[in-house]
Structures are given as C-alpha cells and as structure tokens.
C-alpha cells in the first residue's frame, strides 16, 4: 500500500507532518505528526503563579494573547477560590475583551491571506486569483498592511505585539487614556475600510460570481469571498469532512458571570451549554500514541507533566490526544458559530451546503464570518471603555489552590490548568485547540478530527495531494507542524512535491464525501 508523506507542512505555525496510507486512490489511514516538544509544562513548575502568564504566552507567537489570558484566568480562578482575589475591575474585563477580539481578527487576517490563501491562489493552484499570490499579489500585500495596522492598534495597550505585556494578574497594566482609545479606533477603522462594509457582502458575492471587482465595496471582503468561491470550486464543501462534533469553551465574559459566546457542546445534532465543572470533568488526555510516558496522560489536574519518551514504540506525535467524554471534538471558529447558532448571510447553508457540516469549506467560511462579526463588535466595545478608570487593584502570589482557565484561541478551545502550593506552581497543564483538531490517536485507536477528516479522501495525484494540504490548513493549526507524504521502497517510488507554485490543482481530485473511516 503506498504511503504518502508530506513533511514539512508549511504555512502553519510550528512543525507538523502527515503520513497517509493510500489504497485505490483513497486515503485509508492518516497520521498527524506534531514534530516539536519544548517542555513548557515543566519549565513553569516551581515558580510563582504570576510568572506563568509571561512564560506560557511564549507557547505561541501567533496566539500570543490567548495563552497569557488563559494562564491568567487559571491563576485568578485559583486565587478566587483561595479567597485572596475578588476579580478584575470592570474596565480590565472590557479591555481584555477588546484586545482578544482584535487579536482574533488579526489572526484570521493572517491566516486567510498568508497561510491558507496561497492554497487558492493563481501561483500555487492555477485558480486565476493572482491577488492572493504570496508576497506579490495585490490582495496579499494589502492584507499584510492591514494586519500591521491592526497590531499597531493592539500595541496601544499591549506595548508591543506579538507578545504584549499589558495583561497582568489582577487585571491590566495599561491605563486606557482617551488618546490611546482614539488611536485604536483609527487603526481599526483603517482595517475596517480595507475589509469593506458588512452590508455590502451580498453585492460582493454577486461581483465575485460575475468576475467583477469593485474596490469601493472593500478589497478585503472581495478577496476573502473570492477565496471561498475558489474553495467551493475545488470541492472543499465535500472534503475534509469530520464527525461534526463541536466543542467551545466560551469567551468574552459579560460582567454578570456569563460569557457573550457561551460554552457549548454539539454532538449528534444536539446543542448543550455545559457548566465549567462539567467541561473540566469531561476532559482527559491520552498519551497512548504520543512520545510521552503513560503516566503523562489522564485528567489534566492529576496527570504528570509531559515526560518525554522519544523511543516509545508505536508513538508518532509530540502531541497528546485530548478527548471529551471519550470523544474527539472539533474546535475553532466553526464550533463557535455553531454553539451560538449563527450563520451570517447564510453562507454555510448556501455555499457550504449545510451550516453544521464539518468540511474544509465551512471552516474557511466560518473564519470569514467571524471576522466580520468581530470587526463590528470591536467598534462597539471601544465605546464602552471609560478613559482613565481603574484597571487593577493589585495581586498576591501568596496562596494555595487549583484553578482552570477555559478560553478560546482564534483556532479553538484552549485550557490552562494549575495547582499552586504556598505561592509555588506544583502542576501545570495546557491543552491547545491544535491538540483537539490535529493530535494523534488515543488508547482506543480513535483518530483526531484531522486524521478522521482526510481518511477516505481521494488522492489522485500522489505528488500533489493539495486537498489534504488545504484540509490541514483549514484547521489553522498552530504548532510548527508538518505533513509527511512518503512511499515505502518497492511500492511506490515517486517523491512528493505538493502544492508547489508550478503545481496545478487537479481537476479530477474529487472528494469521497462521507466515506466511513477505514482502518483495515
């Protein structure tokens, strides 16, 4: 049986690779390899809780706010339960919600144009969309400029970006002066003008259908809609199909104990909104196929820090396999929109065919829809922040307790788990959205969402499995990740050259929608 290996996966954050077993032109088994281990969960041990957000922020320079934020939520949760902390001031809550929205919008812009956009560009896939060509297309260059403006707005409070410093235990460190608020508004409006007005979307869709381009309606949305139509043309509504189970931690606290996007679980067509305790008790991690010792798995609050075992037999990933009540769960923009029952402009219902379908196209559409929602919300919440109001009432590290920070990175559900004894961290665990979406198999052989979603996919051109690459990038993985497409000697000897600029998307590369996972 031929084996295709794609290594490295480029245009993602981190080291990743994929191995595909292919039989009769279809993927029978996929293995998602996370090819990097650093040991954050060991390095933060034996340090004071207030150091954890600064350290764990450095897990990722693309999700540079969410790890700091989740870590803060975890230690603030522990301090509250220990009775030494009364919560962050109202203005700090609003500033965090604002900055998290800006960061997610920024991430989506970078993802859609720099990371996934080239998959649908003329240079890479012969689609005719030369505006999306890497580094040279007009759309690509405008998006690079827009993301800079957005981060400049972010840096008004962040100090710098990536790796801003303003999120501090107890609230924020930055004072929201009227001048800084105005500067943020100016930058966001620059980006907003680039995107174009929300209510122009139907007209933009018509333009794209007719091959017309009206820059006055917004270059950004035009390019994004063009990308979605190119994905549809490539058949992305029918490939990369996962099980359709979604998990969202909720985000943006509303000040009354709830969250503007609530936690949600969507299984078998049923949507529920679990309490925090329900979520934290449902999560377990498996290290059965991971390069860690067996006792590195279990419940996040009880398991050992990840003890590397690089020679472990049958292991193939530096990622663990998190499961929710034993199930693999998809997480990300699509999950957030499904648990809030939103489908702006019915794009997933019409273009995607079904608003809750787990497909490569729906993941892209959801990110575009969320970008528009975020832009509108950012301009609203900016008005709520009272200049020069209290952002922090102080913090002490001197306590014992446990805490969990449940949050949403732009690419999905993120959680940080901490145990503190007498002001020192004694256990720490991080479960990233990329582990949910692209981790390895668990002890029962259940694959991760990505592994499951490409099994059954048609691979006509072994040298250019572009739809597999489109699918892996549709999850916006963040891990320095690679996809290996390899061929054992004697079976299939071609080397793989996927998604190169010279390559052309194969028209006959039709998906194999809904095919069951075949583990034979």
């Amino acid at each position: 049986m031929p084996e295709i290996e794609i290594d490295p996966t480029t245009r993602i954050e981190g080291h990743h690779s994929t191995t595909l077993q292919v039989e009769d032109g279809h993927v029978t088994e996929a293995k998602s390899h996370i090819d990097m281990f650093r040991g954050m969960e060991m390095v933060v041990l034996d340090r004071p809780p207030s150091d954890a957000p600064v350290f764990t922020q450095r897990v990722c320079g693309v999700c540079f706010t969410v790890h700091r934020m989740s870590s803060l939520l975890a230690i603030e949760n522990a301090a509250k339960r220990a009775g030494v902390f009364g919560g962050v001031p109202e203005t700090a809550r609003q500033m965090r919600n604002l900055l998290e929205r800006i960061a997610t919008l920024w991430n989506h812009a970078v993802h859609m144009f720099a990371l996934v956009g080239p998959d649908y560009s003329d240079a890479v896939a012969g689609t005719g969309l030369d505006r999306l060509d890497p580094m040279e297309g007009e759309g690509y260059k405008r998006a690079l400029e827009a993301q800079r403006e957005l981060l400049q707005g972010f840096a008004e409070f962040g100090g710098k970006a990536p790796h801003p410093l303003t999120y501090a235990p107890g609230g924020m460190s930055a004072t929201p002066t009227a001048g800084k608020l105005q500067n943020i508004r100016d930058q966001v409006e620059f980006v907003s003008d680039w995107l174009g007005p929300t209510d122009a979307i139907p007209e933009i869709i018509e333009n794209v259908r007719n091959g017309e381009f009206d820059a006055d309606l917004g270059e950004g949305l035009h390019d994004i809609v063009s990308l979605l139509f190119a994905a549809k043309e490539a058949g992305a509504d029918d490939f990369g199909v996962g099980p359709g189970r979604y998990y969202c931690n909720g985000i943006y606290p509303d000040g009354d104990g709830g969250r503007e996007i609530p936690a949600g679980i969507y299984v078998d067509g049923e949507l529920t909104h679990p309490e925090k305790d329900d979520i934290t008790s449902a999560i377990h991690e498996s290290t059965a196929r991971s390069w860690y010792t067996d006792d590195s798995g279990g419940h996040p609050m009880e398991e050992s820090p990840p003890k590397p075992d690089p020679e472990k037999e049958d292991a193939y990933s530096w990622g663990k396999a998190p499961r929710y009540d034993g199930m693999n769960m998809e997480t990300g923009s699509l999950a957030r929109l499904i648990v809030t029952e939103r489908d702006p402009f019915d794009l997933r219902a019409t273009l995607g065919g079904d608003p809750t379908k787990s497909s490569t196209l729906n993941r892209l559409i959801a990110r575009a829809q969320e970008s528009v929602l975020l832009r509108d919300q950012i301009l609203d919440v900016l008005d709520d922040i009272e200049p020069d109001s209290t952002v922090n009432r102080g913090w002490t590290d001197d306590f014992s307790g446990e805490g969990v920070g449940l949050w949403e990175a732009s690419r999905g559900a993120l959680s940080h788990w901490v145990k503190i004894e007498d002001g020192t961290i004694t256990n720490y665990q991080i479960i990233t959205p990329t582990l949910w979406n692209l981790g390895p198999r668990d002890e029962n052989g259940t694959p991760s969402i990505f592994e499951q979603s490409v099994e059954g996919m048609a691979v006509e051109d072994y040298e250019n499995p572009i739809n597999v690459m489109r699918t892996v990038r549709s999850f916006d993985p963040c891990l320095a990740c690679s996809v290996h497409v390899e061929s054992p000697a004697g079976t299939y000897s071609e080397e793989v050259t996927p998604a190169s600029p010279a390559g052309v998307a194969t028209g006959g590369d039709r998906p194999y929608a809904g095919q069951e996972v075949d583990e034979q």
Partner: protein
Amino acid sequence: MTTADTETKTGTEATTTRRNFLKLVGGVSAGTVITQYSSEVATALEQASNGSKEVVWLQGQTCSACTMSTLQGTSPSLEEAISQFKLDVTFHPEIMAETGEAATEAMSSSPDILMVEGAIPTKIPSAATFGRTEDGHHKPVVDWLLELAPEAEYVMGIGTCACYGGWQSANNGAPAVEDFDEEGPWMDANVTGAKGLQYTHREDDAGVLGPDFTANSGLPVINVPGCMTHPDYVLLTVATLLNGHEPDLDEFNRPKAFYGPLVHDQCSRRGYFDRGEFVEHVGDGSGKCLYNVGCKGPYCHCDDSVRLWNDGTSVCRNVGAPCIGCMEPGFWDRMTPFYDPIEEQGVALTDVETAGKVAVGATAAGLGAHAARKAMGYGDAEPDEQDETESTE
C-alpha cells in the same frame, strides 16, 4: 507617544524606502556602522544589486513570534526588504508557497544569509524536526543547521531562543515539586538540551556551532535577540551586511547599534526613579517608576525606548508593564520572578561599564550586590566565577 510619520507608512517606492531608512537609522546611537554608512546603505537600496541574495530561514523550537514580529516591520517592511534588497527567500516554513519535499528542495544549500529562529534541541534532537533523512526518519533541525551553517556567507540568530536557547532551556522545575521515581530527561535541568547557535544561558556551555564558529564571511553568528526580536534589528542588520559592512558587535555578538543602550538610561520614567517615586502596584495608573514591581530595565540592553514597537506605537513601560529583560541571555531564570525586583533588593549596580551612570542616590534601599550579579552575570554561575566573567570580558 508616536514617532510614526503616516506619510511614510505605505510607500513602496524606492524613495520612500530611503526616507524610511534614514528616519530609522537616525534613531540608533552615534558611532555605529549603520549610522556611519547610512547614506551609503540607503543609496545601495535604490540600486539594483548584483543578482538576488539567497536566504534560508530555519525554525527550531520556536513560537514563531519573531517571524510575526518581522512581518510588523515598516522601515522597511518585509515585502519592501524582499524586493528592495533583492532577497530570494528560498525557505521559510511559514510564508513559503511550497510544502512537503518541494519546500525542502527549494531551499538553498549555500545561502547568502542563514537566519535561525528558535532554540536547537541537542539532547532530544527529535524535539524539533522537519523533512526526512535519506533513510526516512524525521530530520532534526540540528542536522539541518550543521549542514547549512558552514556553507552560509552570514548566519544570524533571530530572537532570544536562537541566540541563547530561550525558555526551552530555562530551569526545569519538575524535580523540585514532583515525586519522580524513575530517571529520565524529565530530571534534567534542560529537558531537551535546548541551545542557541553560539551561546547558551550558561557560561560553561557553548551553543551548537561552538564558540569559534565563523561563517564564510569570517563573521561569527550575528545575534539579534529579544522575546520577540524587533523587525528593525533583523532587516537593518541584513541591510548592513549586504552592503558589505561589519556591524560593531558586543560580547554576545549583538550589533551595538541596537543593543548598546541600557533601557534604564533611556527610560521616560527615569525622573521618578531618581526621586524615589514608585508605583503602588502594576496597573495603578500613576505612571511612576516600575522598579519595585520588577522592572529589569537596569539590566537590559536595547534601544526600544526610543525606537518603540509596531511602527513607533509604544513600548513596555508605556503600558505600565515592567521590562522583563528579554534581550539578555538566560533572562528566564536570571530576571525572574518577573514582578519582583531581583531578590527584592533596592537599586543595584548594573554592570561595570554602566554602574557609574546609575543614579543610586536617595532611592538606594540597599546595594544588592548579589542581586546585581544574578542579573548581570552570564548564566547561574557562583558569585566568584561571575566576577571573573565580568573582568575578562
């Protein structure tokens, strides 16, 4: 506070680049090569160079923030730099069009500039891999580095991880708080053996390429640290090198143009420090000196106080955040806890060179000599060894 000139933000014309470049080099300290040759370098940017320069950007154990930071450059921007400096980026895992084997085949085997982002794991080489070896195994980044570095004209360490090992090499706290009953890498201080290219955070341990390494240009690895690095530090160092100038380097091979100033000396809150007026806590809105909540400005060298970040938008202290010392080797251990002054001491000496400039004065609650050694030293050496380090450098 902003130094941004909106007129210069979006230009892609050569003249605009020249203006940006001059604006930018005007900010660096006098007497450095970039200042001395600024007009020459700027002129060169306007001229077609002799063919393109091949660049390879490797990622080791990285968070990618240094790549994301480089995307934030405006004077020049990355896309301006690529077109104006005629850079042929033959490999960058995050921005290149190709993937899989096509990506590694596109990589130059003898790049003009090899840039490395992220730490290099040496005890567990498989902790950062990409591509495959001839026998089909995941190829460790350390192998790529050892192949490419001797063939490169210049090698640059991008960010604190590539320069000194980064947080991956910070002290593993597990043995102190866990009851491990079996031996394994989890008992080691540096679990994966993460190192920088020529340095680590320890004086007694060299980086992957060793202390005597020089690239084909004859220069050692040029380090532009920071967590993350500043886009100007990357792109202007490239401009300097491509124009044939040797940047003046400090003891950690950092260009003095950028890493010469002490943050403390250029601090806008310095007046509060000299008067002994400190914040009550982080985020109190007073705008006073942050030393007592852990500011490491007295121990950290870079010019971001005047250069600022994100096209002149802001800097750490402008948002009430104490400096974490992120330009310095081993800051993850030497500058922590982040929100505490080092060893809770009063104002300390900074180093032999700058001690005289520090206004200790009325604010000195005590001269934290040991604290100063911890912050300024190279690695976690004992005080006596530390003194020796300072005197020999």
